[in-house]
């Protein structure tokens, strides 16, 4: 039984690792020189529709911005600009293969997410810490499984950078971000609700409870409300975990892509 579990974990780790590798298939590599050449080519060829320096243009979306992307691998981006996107305003551009790869390197350098260049480490052990010692799965979901009070981490590797993930685990935020302010509400009927504030104004509150249920309250039902200044997200994982455990956890988290 134990061996079966180890095997499954190893297979899963191999699958993750492979996904990480498959994202980086640019034959010209990802050096700054290639990306710089790509930038010039991009600004010559793409700005009729997309914006200058991969911002949003009049007729096409930003290719690098604070958002997640459908196409995150080298190959998917290469296909988009060599074949176009059928049924949309994105045409095949007819550039040479090398120039196309240069532009891909440029777009990737702007986005550089954790999953683009994931750090080394024991991914299987990282996953074990996620589900065990770190207690992450009690508050976060991956692929629809886990607790609801924290943000979904299914696509974390693609939408965040290694630096930002490490900070989330080790540096306390001055304020909990919007949608995650912890509150305890004492109601006039004597009951109590604890959770994070999804929305509020003078007249109503929408809370996701630590019971993973929604609580929709009118202000006139409330006796007293206590807001916490600290996020529910623990920020002491650099002391809670050994250095190697944290490295492995980061290796695992960086490879989380949808």
């Amino acid at each position: 039984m134990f061996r079966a579990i180890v095997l499954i974990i190893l297979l899963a780790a191999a699958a993750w690792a492979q996904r990480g590798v498959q994202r980086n298939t640019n034959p010209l590599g990802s050096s700054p020189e290639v990306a710089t050449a790509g930038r010039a080519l991009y600004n010559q060829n793409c700005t009729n529709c997309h914006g200058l320096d991969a911002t949003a243009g009049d007729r096409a979306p930003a290719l690098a911005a604070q958002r997640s992307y459908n196409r995150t691998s080298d190959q998917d981006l290469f296909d988009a600009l060599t074949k176009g996107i059928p049924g949309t305003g994105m045409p095949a551009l007819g550039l040479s293969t090398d120039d196309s790869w240069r532009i891909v390197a440029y777009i990737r350098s702007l986005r550089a997410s954790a999953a683009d260049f994931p750090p080394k480490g024991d991914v299987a052990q990282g996953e074990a810490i996620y589900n065990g010692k770190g207690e992450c799965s009690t508050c976060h979901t991956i692929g629809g499984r886990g607790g609801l009070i924290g943000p979904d981490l299914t696509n974390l590797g693609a939408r965040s950078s290694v630096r930002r993930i490490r900070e989330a685990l080790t540096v306390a935020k001055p304020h909990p971000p919007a949608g995650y302010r912890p509150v305890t509400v004492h109601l006039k009927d004597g009951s109590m609700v604890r959770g994070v504030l999804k929305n509020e104004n003078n007249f109503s509150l929408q809370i996701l409870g630590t019971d993973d249920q929604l609580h929709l309250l009118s202000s006139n039902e409330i006796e007293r409300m206590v807001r916490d200044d600290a996020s529910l997200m623990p920020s002491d994982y650099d002391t809670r975990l050994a250095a190697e455990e944290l490295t492995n956890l980061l290796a695992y988290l960086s490879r989380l892509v949808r």
Partner: protein
Amino acid sequence: MLRITLLFLVAHVALAQVSNQDLLNPPPENWLTYGGSYDSQRHTKLDEITPGNVKNLQAAWIFPITSTNRLQTVPLVVDGVMYVSAPNEVYALDARSGREIWQYRRANGLNRGPNRGVAVFGNLVYVGTPDAYLVALDARTGTVAWETQIAKTSDGYFSPGAPFVADGKVIAGVGGGDNGLNGWLDAYDAETGKLIWRWYTIPRPGEPGNETWAGDSWKTGGGGTWLSGSYDPELGLIYWGLGNPAPDFDGDIRKGDNLYTESVVALDLKTGKLKWHFQFTPHDVHDWDSVEIPILVDAQFNGRMRKVMAHADRNGFYYVLDRETGEFLHGTPFIDQLNWATGLTPEGRPIRVPGVEPTLTGNFVCPSTSGATNWMSPAYNPVTGLFYLAAKEGCGVSFKGRQEFRPGGFDFKATGYIESPEEPWQMYVRALDLTTGERKWEYMQVNAKSYGAGLISTASGLIFGGDDQGTFAALDARTGAPLWHFETNYRISASPISYAVNGHQYVAVAAGVNIIAFRLPDTN
């Protein structure tokens, strides 16, 4: 542990899970499916708002969704939480205030077709997407639980209809019929998103019905599944209206009846096997999709109780079918301007008038391609025994040409139509006797020339509907007299719903760019 239990034994817990029982017998305060209940009667049992007090109805809140200017979403409400959608977007709102709880946005979504709403089951909310995925979201956070591809995006399909949940299966369909893309209906496991069965709307070679397509024309025959359906749990059958054949206006290259386009089909929910079909417009050349929601009623017909289905078709006829067998029981036009058929045969087949087909130079046809009714849902009130619908009077000129099919989701209509400008286009709300189709009353929506809202009926005897002027109105279900109205001043293209929170009844509708909820003032 005890403390935790006590902590949450409170009345404010929104969203208990939606169970099979809930879907079979929806609690009146919740609106759980596109049609309000499996029979799609859109008849709420809530009766706080009455013909007597409706004059006091007022807007409770507004929630704008600015990514589209023509919302077609039918809101769902589960225990005080409302779910609404637009292409690539879903929102959860506090149904008392419209305050947002969460939103889901599909990154880089394509822009194909409208979105007509979501489905709910368990702790999940289901939505179809413009790139033809079915996405399941956690109802409490909007987080993706799973997503599954209904069709290859690059083939040009999209999924605009509200998914439909029955017995642990999510039924979802596709749009793309006007592009020559053949449709199908899928059943997915509601928990995992795994495909359970697929039923193709255009029979393939060797399947019965394929002979109703000349040559290879079945390959690009259309037959979209872009709205939602109804379900009879006793018979275990789901009913779905199917879209038009392609190319829409050029019938010469697809001689034959072109099954199962413009039919309603009854499928075994368990297996996806076809139990029966009824085709409203065989070999159509006017793009008269038959997707209009079928309403299921158990009613006296010729002296005996029968399980019937009532369907008002885009082709201008109102039909009553036996929903166990598909037998045609009765049919009659619900519009006055109809020139393409003189009536229906005893089997329900239209008796065609020759010479109204589209031509190169254009031909006059009533109703026009936009049809006598469309996706806006009809309603049925079991007390009045009346079937209510949005009906359009007017004619058009239809043209045909030759067009080559291009894979990837490109227009394959073989030209189109115009609505002759000199025609007095006019929208009505009409009430028909369920079994005879006889018109009992009509309410003219003055200056409304194009499609507006669908309808709901209330136990207290009201009909709510709206028009392309943006007027949202309450009518007396017995007479059609207008009793209340509210000017949204933006074209309404969706069907309203009703729900209750803390014992207060609301009526809500997507109007242009806004979701608007109405209720009576507290002092009422």
